């Protein structure tokens, strides 16, 4: 971990009609840092994650990701930026049901001009790392919850992102599988130096992070 900031959100607010879900939150994540965003359900964690990752635009405030101010970017510019710099892991895996494990991993590469063999090679390498080398042709429906999440992690890594955004990545898994997924994320952070911003409501999981950010009612409290 070094001291340069990979992600910073300044004075971020998000309103849906009259309801202000995020209220003036400021967040910074350094390169290679593992930060957990914790708080009770409905406190605005996922919305803040969406604002910081460029999935959603803030009502007020600015986000700087990888040295680029992204709040004024167009939707397509943001998509391209996410493809090259950001990885996502979701609670409900969000794999495409009709694509095999390796094709799901290679999904961000589909719009890029490269051969299918190259896509498959890169996806298979990552699935091997996730110990899923024997499951590359399986559809998501044939995978267990833990395997699905490992496929999702491999997908998040396919473009060598600078930062991974993980939204309750163990929320749909039993405790032992959840622990295995956390081990993978920790390993990624420690060995690959990837910055991780993870949303969770479980304090136990958050203990493995370098730093905790606590939220309550849309505000950062510590």
């Amino acid at each position, binding site marked *: 971990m070094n001291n340069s900031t990979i992600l910073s959100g300044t004075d971020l607010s998000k309103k849906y009609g009259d309801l202000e879900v995020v209220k003036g939150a400021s967040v910074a994540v350094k390169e290679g840092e593992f930060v957990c965003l914790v708080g009770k359900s409905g406190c605005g964690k996922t919305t803040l994650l969406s604002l910081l990752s460029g999935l959603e635009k803030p009502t007020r405030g600015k986000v700087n990701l990888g040295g680029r101010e992204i709040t004024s970017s167009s939707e397509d510019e943001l*998509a391209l930026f996410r493809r*090259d710099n950001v990885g996502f892991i979701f609670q409900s895996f969000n794999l495409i049901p*009709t694509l095999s494990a390796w094709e799901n991993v290679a999904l961000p590469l589909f719009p890029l001009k490269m051969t299918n063999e190259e896509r498959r090679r890169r996806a298979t390498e990552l699935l091997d790392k996730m110990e899923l080398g024997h499951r590359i042709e399986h559809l998501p429906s044939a995978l267990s919850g833990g395997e699905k999440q490992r496929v999702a992690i491999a997908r998040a890594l396919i473009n060598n992102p600078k930062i991974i955004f993980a939204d309750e990545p163990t929320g*749909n898994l039993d405790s032992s599988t959840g622990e295995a997924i956390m081990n993978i994320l920790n390993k990624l952070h420690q060995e690959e130096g990837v910055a991780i911003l993870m949303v969770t409501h479980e304090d136990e999981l958050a203990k493995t992070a370098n730093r905790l950010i606590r939220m309550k009612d849309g505000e950062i409290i510590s």
Partner: protein
Amino acid sequence: MNLRYLMKELYYQRRRTLMSILGLSIGIALLIVLNALSLAYRQAAHVPLREIGADITVQRSGDVPKDLAGAVFPCSAVTIRKEEVDKIQKLPGVRGIGTGLLLWVFDPNRAWIVLGIEKENSIGPSLLRSSVTEGRFLGDGKPEALVEQAYARQFGIRLNDVISVADKKFPVVGFVDASRAAKIAVANVYLPLKEAEDLAASSKELQSVSPYAPGDVNLLFIKADQEKITSLASEMKGILGNKATVATPDSFLKLLGSLFALSDKFTLAASLIAIIVAVLIAFKTMAGNIAERAREIGVLKAVGWTNRNVVSQLMSESVIQCFMAGILGLLIALVAAFGLSFMKVNIPIPWEMSPTPHFLPGGGDQIFKTLRLPVHVPWNLAFFAILLSIIIGGLTGGLLGRHISKIKPSEVLRHE
């Protein structure tokens, strides 16, 4: 567009894909069948004239003879002067003319329908050459006769017998099977045109009703440029006067009485409805399919697919599905067309063109040309239907894709 993703989506969502394809294919099949039927009726309407190598037949009605004795003209076919024939021949769009002279000959103990025909002409009743069943066709410059086979059988006329028509002797050199020929320009006895002209010119009864000189005729068979048939018909009426009967394929089409035959507008309206139904079916099923995939599209956008990438993928899926629907619709239509081609159609022959005197037994009966409806799917209709399917696919996929690509990933990816 990623072909692998596209094919897997269509394959693994088989039920959804099949529903879309089936729905649209029915609309496409309907469109093809309606147009094939319309075309078949149009082609059927050409048959009676095509069988005598003509596109137009012309005759002129006149007065009924006072006494039915000797050679007379049927009241539906009186003299067309040589000068009038020459004028018609010079009309732009006329490619050739065949002539005939139809006579009713009332001998003391027999009535004949006599047709004087040109011996060598690819237009008109000289085409009967191919319907000779026994003996030979008429020779050059000889007074000889061909007799219709059924008529000869009925009256015991044999080959090489000599028949007397209006006191003139004609050896029978052959029999023809008129049932194989067209229903128009048929007779009991066929004579060389020159012989029929002599019979007409020497008949006082005929001359008193419709003055006649050798070289005049009373039946014209005209080959014309297809696109000029309608305009030529009215020009010929202008030359021959309002008593002229000018028969074109359209005349037969009107007599067919089918909705398809009656009106281009009906076919056009029915085709439009079929297209609209096809588009609505495609739009509805694909809108449902795409709405079900909102979360998937959210994932694509989250991992870096641009709106254009998403639209192009959905549009390609839609085009492929609609293309397959077009192919299936075409196959359904081909099967339906094959089935419909066994349907018989009776084309009424206008009474003016019936050679039989209406006062003879059966003479007043409506006669028909019966044929199998020539239903087939022409390649240009098939090509149009497939192209239309692809366009429907492109438009539907493009519109729905543009709409759905606007969703925000954060809205659809929130965990439940």
